[in-house]
């Protein structure tokens, strides 16, 4: 009846604990080890020695966290219980004697005690944490696979949910969590689906405030590191503790998805912090949305994030785009929202290129009203006045493409005043930019009657390449379009790198005359044309 893999695993585990124990090697320790082994072998020999279990429990409950004994006792107890589970020693057989039932009940109580001991070990941040997790998962496995006798065999949900709770509520136990994800959740399909279900339960039941934050962040990290659901039904073939007869229930992708969806939604409902939201938003299109049965359910979350403003909205945009594209989501006032997102920070944002990629997609249609497109063009060109060169480099070709796509907007770069009286009227009169920068509705900004003075100014940008690029707006529009992708990922660093990596081919030009004043100058009298530096700084 014994699982054939058990002995080898056991030996391994013994080996594992060996060094641990030897670390704090004393004569006492050696004695203790041998005593534990003795107790264990006695238990296995005869039921008479079942009381040894209590003794071992006592040892494993010991206070000293560094004590090797504790671990050793836990390990041997695990072996004992595994064997008991395997040979049905812990099953209440109908028609058994009272004494027998007593023993079984007693054993079950001890088993409970034992699992509690392990769970507390799991909580404590020390070396034995990993061992505790391994032992617990071992118990999960054996419990799931114990021989059938009367009652139905099931995945040991109760035990597993206790483990998960401990792991998820722990304050700082990332190792155990990572191990759990790596070795079990990602590897076994049944563990995964149960994890999702349990997370949902845990998330809905409510937590005390001090645990909540830890729970949220742990859950997030578990969920985000969990692999995406299996692609097809046939891929669901790895089971850890689910008995063979129950497996068919699990082999449905929808079930997986449903559980995952529930888990995520439950997580969304807990109060997420800003950073956590950002992480989730980053994952949405790649990880979260694909495992949703109804991705529409994400909409609320996305809308909330979009309304949040700042970089949050930028991140939400890609998720929203996924929904619009894949699920045909109709988002009311979308362009207005998009327009509002164009604020001062966008050109300096880290997510600039990401945003522009999406923006390019959103405005790719030729059926958009010209007024709206003009507003986008004008606003971005206004913003690029304060932008770093990398930002300008993105905006200019993009504007070119839009102008090419919407010829009506070319009035923004070329507007002749035909009526004579109008031009007469204009002479000597103040002209304000018709564009309303603060208007939030892109259709109402009147950008189309404005001009792109900003881009013209950028033609005198200090960076020669940027200046030349800005000049494309006033050249003839012969090119069909620029590939905006080429201009997206730039920064000061890459530009400098590029400048400095080019070697000098021919001697650079040197100013032909040596200026009289560099820092201080020799003629002490101040002259009108002194360099700024000389005028404004005191070099002493």
């Amino acid at each position, binding site marked *: 009846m014994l699982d054939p893999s058990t002995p080898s695993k056991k030996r391994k585990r013994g080996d594992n604990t060996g060094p641990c124990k030897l670390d704090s090697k004393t004569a006492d320790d050696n004695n203790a080890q041998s005593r534990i082994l003795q107790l264990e072998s006695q238990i296995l020999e005869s039921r008479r020695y079942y009381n040894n279990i209590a003794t071992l429990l006592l040892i494993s409950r010991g206070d000293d966290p560094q004590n090797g004994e504790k671990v050793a006792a836990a390990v041997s107890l695990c072996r004992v219980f595994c064997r008991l589970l395997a040979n049905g020693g812990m099953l209440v057989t109908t028609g058994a004697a009272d004494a027998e039932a007593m023993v079984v009940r007693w054993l079950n109580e001890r088993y409970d005690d034992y699992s509690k001991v392990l769970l507390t070990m799991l909580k404590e941040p020390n070396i034995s944490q990993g061992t505790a997790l391994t032992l617990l998962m071992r118990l999960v496995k054996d419990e799931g696979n114990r021989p059938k006798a009367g009652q139905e065999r099931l995945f040991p949900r109760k035990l597993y949910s206790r483990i998960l709770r401990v792991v998820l509520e722990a304050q700082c136990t990332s190792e155990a969590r990572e191990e759990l994800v790596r070795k079990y959740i990602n590897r076994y399909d049944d563990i995964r689906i149960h994890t999702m279900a349990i997370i949902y339960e845990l998330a809905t039941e409510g937590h005390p405030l001090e645990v909540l934050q830890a729970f949220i962040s742990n859950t997030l990290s578990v969920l985000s590191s969990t692999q995406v659901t299996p692609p097809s039904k046939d891929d669901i073939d790895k089971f850890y503790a689910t008995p063979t007869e129950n497996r068919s229930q699990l082999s449905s992708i929808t079930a997986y998805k449903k559980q995952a969806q529930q888990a995520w939604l439950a997580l969304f409902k807990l109060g997420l912090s800003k950073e956590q939201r950002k992480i989730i938003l980053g994952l949405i299109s790649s990880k979260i949305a694909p495992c949703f049965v109804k991705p529409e359910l994400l909409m609320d979350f996305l809308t909330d994030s979009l309304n949040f403003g700042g970089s949050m909205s930028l991140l939400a945009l890609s998720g929203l785009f996924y929904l619009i594209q894949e699920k045909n989501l109709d988002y009311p006032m979308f362009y207005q929202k998009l327009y509002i997102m164009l604020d001062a920070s966008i050109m300096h944002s880290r997510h600039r290129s990401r945003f522009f990629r999406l923006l390019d997609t959103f405005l790719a249609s030729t059926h958009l009203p010209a007024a709206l497109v003009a507003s986008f063009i004008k606003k971005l060109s206004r913003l690029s006045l304060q932008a770093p060169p990398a930002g300008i480099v993105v905006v200019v070709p993009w504007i070119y493409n839009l102008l090419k796509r919407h010829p009506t907007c070319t009035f923004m770069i070329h507007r002749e005043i035909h009526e004579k009286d109008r031009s007469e009227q204009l002479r000597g009169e103040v002209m304000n930019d018709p564009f309303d920068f603060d208007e939030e509705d892109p259709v109402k900004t009147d950008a189309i009657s404005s001009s792109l003075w900003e881009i013209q100014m950028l033609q005198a940008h200090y960076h020669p390449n940027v200046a030349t690029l800005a000049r494309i707006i006033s050249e003839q529009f012969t090119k069909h379009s620029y590939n905006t992708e080429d201009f997206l990922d730039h920064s000061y660093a890459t530009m400098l790198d590029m400048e400095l990596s080019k070697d000098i081919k021919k001697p650079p030009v040197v100013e032909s005359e040596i200026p009289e*004043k560099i820092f201080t100058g020799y003629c002490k009298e101040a002259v009108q044309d002194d360099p700024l530096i000389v005028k404004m700084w005191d070099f*002493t």
Partner: protein
Amino acid sequence: MPPSQLKRLKATLRAEGITGAQPSKKIRKKAGNGTGNDRRVQRTTALQNIREQFNPFEVTALGRGREKFQVTTNKTLSGRGLKGRPGVTKSLGEENRKNTLLLEMQRRKKVGGIIDRRFGENDPTMTPEERMLERFTKEKQKRYRNGAVFDLEDGEEEDQLTHFGQTLSFDNGKAIDDFEEGDLELLDEDDRSSDGGLNKRKRGQSPGLENGNDGDDGNELPERKKSKAEVMKEVIAKSKFHKFERQQARDADEELREDLDKELPNLLGLLRGGNLPPPSIPDLMSAKVDGSGMNPARAAMMISTDKAQADKQYDMRLREMALDRRSKPTERTKTEEEKAEEEARRLQELEEERLRRMRGEVSDGEEELDATEGNGIGGDDEEADVENFGLGPGISGWKQQKGLDIEDEDEFVIDDDLVANDSDGSVETESEMSVLSEDDEDREFLEGLALDHEANGGGSRSAISSAKRTGSEDGPNPTLAYTFPCPQTHKELLETVKGVAFKDLPTVVRRIRTLYHPKLHNGNKEKLEQFSTALVEHLAYLADQPDHPPFLILESLIRHVHSLAKTYPENISRAFRSHLKSIHENRPLAPTAADLVILTAIGSIFPTSDHFHKVVTPAILSMARYLGQSPPTSLSDLAVGAYLGTMCLQVCFGCFPDVSCARLMLTDYLQYQRLSKRYVPEVMNYVLNALCILAPARLRVVPGNFPYHEPASPLRLQNAVAGHVHCLRFWDILPQELPDGEKSRLKAALIETHVTLIDSAAELWAGKSAFYEVFEPAFKVLQFLAGKECRKWLPSGTKEKIGMTSEKLQRLLKQARLSRRPLALHYHRPLAIRTSIPKFEDSYNPDKHYDPDRERAEVGRLRAEYKRERKGALRELRKDANFIARELLREKKEKDQEYEKKYKRLVAEIQGEEGHERKEYEREKRLRRGKR
């Protein structure tokens, strides 16, 4: 039913007037004054026509489909090619073959043979008389050609038979040359030998005869009419005489020349101004002895026994000659005006050059080249660049090779360049530039040297002089060494200047530059190149020293670097670039004092107005990077920012102001928009941010779109500062602990500096089209600073400054709005729409291929031609084969016929003989019978 062929023929002949009644004489006379010949010709043509008309096989219409109608081509009307004359062509071909192929056939398998090259042998058109005449003339010509025209001895004479030189002609008794030789002999006896040809024959004659002749000529035959031969001889003799005279004259000339040559060394000596020692005695002697036309000095050299020494002397002389300076007309000393004008012209040229660079039109040919090859697809073609050109910013490239991106962004630049200008011009001016700078350098250097000798330098404007002044002001340390090794690395430089006071540093540098001037020694150029690199490093090193060296020293060092940069621009630029690289890699957001000094030096050494410059562009990019990316957190940060902002503005002004001012004075008549005035968004962002965080009170709404960073520890000016605030000191850029009072003072100074920056930025970018958008927020910030919340904290000077600046801004803003007009950037000639309608051909021919692809059309044409030729050749070959077969058959037939004839003849002969014999026999028999 039409009449029969014969009847028709008769009718036609009659109609033509060939048969039937001949026209009467009268009519004939009336009809034409033409002669009989004319009529005959008419008759033959008429007959020919009739013949053609009645022979339907003589002419064929060409094959079907060849017929052309006017709708397709005009060729139909010309009638060419409408009719074929198979008979004629066939016979022509046959004739041709007979002349060529048949001959070849007959000559087949035959070797050698005689080719008759005589005239007219194969020409049946010639009459025998003509033939003979032709032969005769040919022969004559041949002889004439062979005979030397210029032979002194006449070919004719030589052909004559002689005996002992005496002609054997019989037409006159004594055929002796009647030419008086004696005259010649009198002229020059010696020349006889040289005139051998003439005398050889003479010598053959006996002297007696000669003498006899002399006597004869005059007396005996005075009046006799000369025969033709005699006349000819006379003419010949005269020509000979003239020739001889010419020779004489030439010889005389030669002699004279030789005489002159002998005197040349003396003349040379005179010319060289007595450099040469007077010709040595052996020289003279040898000259006498030799007597030949040889240069005496050279002769002496050849004579002199010491060969090696002679060689040496020769070499020396040669070198002397090589180094000999050609005398040149001295240049007139120029007047003041001329000088000024020249200077103005030079400056104007420089300025034009600068402007061109500013517009980014300098096409560094190499750079273009390298860009195009660097990126295979290059920016050469419209199609090719679709992906790459704009891609300029080589994103993809960057992604592929992480970090170090080969952006082709400047390919973009180049692309435009390609369109816009010619590289030749720039190259040319480039060289001019370098020449100019070289001159400058020299002058300056010499000036420096001169000053070195003087005790006190005058107030010259040149760099070295001013540098000198630094020294002279403090008086150069008399203990300072005069010679130094030329340091090749910075380490060596440190070694060299160890123990030298700061103030003596410029002197040391100057002395090193003097000692190792490239003109003094071969290797000095390389040494100074290395030294200039080390000097740049030292500049940075000095600025980072804890005991801040005086800026006077730094400045004069920068001047030294500048003047070195004129000669070694590459090394200096490399040094600066490597410093920039280290900033970029190690401390992009935390520049040290050294970095600031280096950046300042770059701003003053290199022309900052250039559209693209290998040093300035990265420098300004690094400055902007600091301004854009590092939010200020402390006062020293703000000071650094202010300094860099100042630098940026100065650099973006286009050129170092006082240089430009010097130029303006001379070139102000040129209405150039001279300064580049580039826009640096980062400066405005930084300045506004700085003012917002320094302001005594917090702005409720931050105006404009600049990124606003509230520092962790507030930097607001919270204490009232009284009195005047002096301007920022350079060393404020270092973080330092200050007492509170000083701190607020510094803050106030920072505010003032930043306000000044806004002021100068507004001035700088006043004409720009988006001026209003850029400066409106600045105006708001200034107004806020002037508002009552902040007023009380600010010192009065600052308040005043703020007031002035905001007034100025208000004015400029109003102006900007006044001058604002809708953009009209696209006054381009409208582009032609690319059309796909085929070009209309006036005379379209469906057989012709109007292939727009030239190459393909060419290939098609060739192929068609080949096909046609092949067909023709095949046809010809086939015809040849037919012809050969026919000829062979004919030959065989002839042979057979001949054979048959012969056979028959033989048979007949035999039969005859037999018949004869039989008759004989019968007769014999009869006789015998009769006997019996």
